[in-house]
């Protein structure tokens, strides 16, 4: 118990003192998470809408692939991406290995299926008459999609939250393709793992608390967006 209490005391003092390392790690984590979530949702939400609303050959197989990708192990994604980005890999020339961009790429690969599969389910949950009605009133495909998205706004906000949660809590890919380099690719999750292994429980706990607060703030922001207007 004493060990835990000591850990919390040190974590609190680090946070109160505004430790620059914690601040830097949190900032990088936020940057990576926001960029990766934005890219994953920008591609995943339209993909989900497409899968939910269009009938085409292979649609069922595509949905199965996307749903299977939800459970893809993060370390495997990291490993495959490492192979692709390493000097001998097909994208080795761009020099992204051990950069924050590589972490973003890994996170996008992990969050994209989350965004696509959950948004497909969200769109399928919207009364099909909404889409038909928009079409009968002359709406083109973009406006129809926007109208459907407005109806599914609660579920889609939950999709964004889930994608953000996937990205911010991910460690496997970030560790492998990021390399956990101090000041450059060290994110909250990789830092927590590192400091725990080094026995600096207080620092790990402080970073863990920041991670929790970050997740909480994003959820509050999305809930506030959901709550605007009804009916």
């Amino acid at each position, binding site marked *: 118990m004493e060990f835990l209490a000591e850990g919390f005391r040190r974590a609190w003092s680090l946070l109160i003192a505004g430790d620059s390392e914690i601040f830097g790690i949190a900032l990088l984590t936020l940057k990576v998470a926001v960029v990766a979530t934005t890219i994953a949702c920008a591609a995943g939400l339209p993909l989900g809408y497409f899968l939910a609303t269009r009938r085409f050959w292979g649609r069922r197989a595509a949905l199965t692939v996307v749903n299977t990708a939800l459970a893809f192990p993060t370390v495997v994604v990291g490993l495959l991406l490492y192979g692709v980005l390493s000097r001998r890999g097909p994208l080795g020339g761009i020099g992204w290995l051990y950069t924050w961009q590589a972490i973003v790429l890994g996170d996008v690969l992990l969050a994209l299926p989350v965004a696509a599969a959950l948004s497909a389910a969200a769109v399928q949950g919207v009364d099909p*008459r909404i889409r038909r009605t*928009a079409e*009968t*009133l002359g709406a083109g495909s973009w406006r129809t999609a926007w109208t459907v998205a407005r*109806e599914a706004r609660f579920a889609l906000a939950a999709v964004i939250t889930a994608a953000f949660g996937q990205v911010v809590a991910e460690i496997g890919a970030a560790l492998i393709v990021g390399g956990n380099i101090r000041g450059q690719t060290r994110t909250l999750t990789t830092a927590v793992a590192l400091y725990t292994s080094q026995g600096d429980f207080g620092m790990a706990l402080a970073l863990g608390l920041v991670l929790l607060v970050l997740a909480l703030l994003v959820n509050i922001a999305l809930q506030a967006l959901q709550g605007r207007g009804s*009916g």
Partner: protein
Amino acid sequence: MVELRYVRHRYEGRVVLDFEQFGLPKNGTVALVGHNGAGKSTLLRLLALLEMPTEGHVLWNGTVVSNRARGALRSRVTLVEQRPVLFRGTVRENLQYGLRVRDIRHAAADGIIGDVVDKLGLAPLLTRRRNELSDGEVQRVAVARALVLRTDVLLLDEPASSADRAAAGALYRALAAERAERPFAVCIASHQLEDAYRWADDIRALAEGRLSPVTPENLFRVDLPAGEGLKSVRVGNIQIAAVSDRSGAAVLAVPPTDIFVSREPLASSARNVFKGRVTGMAIEQRGAGVQVRADMGGVELVASMTAEAARDLALTPGGAVVFSFKATAVRVF
């Protein structure tokens, strides 16, 4: 205006529509009658250019509509579904939706909306949201949302199904007022034959995906007994045999062209054979036929035949006549 030709439309391999031609003339009013599942909604969706037929063509002013042209033409036709939905937002925002799509905003949009709102008595509802409206009110708003678009073709699927008689009357009056100001083609799918006869130029019946003309004659309000297949229904003093799986209140329609006229009972497969007296004969308004009216034990039936056949049978008012028709010729609505 818009026409379907040689249509055979399938859903998951099952044929749901199968007919040679269905046209909606420019500025015409057509009623489409048929029971639930007859294919009315699917037919309206084809006319609304929301779907293309699996086989056959859609023509717009005589020109075959290609997939490419469909998008542009869709803004000239609109459909109100049987159970319409409103979008998130107020009634006013719903009425603005289609106008925004057409880039009509501000004062122009307000003017159009105000006009339709007055006709349908929707002014008190403008600031309400969908969860604050009854089913009948939602239906009226949906019709108004379609009317403000001023399309060349308006398709309504059971527009008064959630309305009481007064509200249904107001809806038809509003449509008539709108058509008096601005001619446009209307097609209303309905199971209310009486309403259809009141305002439509032409009535087409749809049963199991097939079309047939319906005339105002030989319509009987009946109470169908339970059970499937052939059943006998009392109409006045006569029993009419009809084939239907439905039960309860229904309307029977016997197309005059499906009635065989003779002087004596014929040996045939017809389940309905009635002896009576000719009460009147008239030249048909359309075509070169003769309408023969006969009293069959207190029930008047009308049969259609050629003038030559009427002459050969030497039919005269007061003379004996026999009407025969098959049970399958009786339409049930």
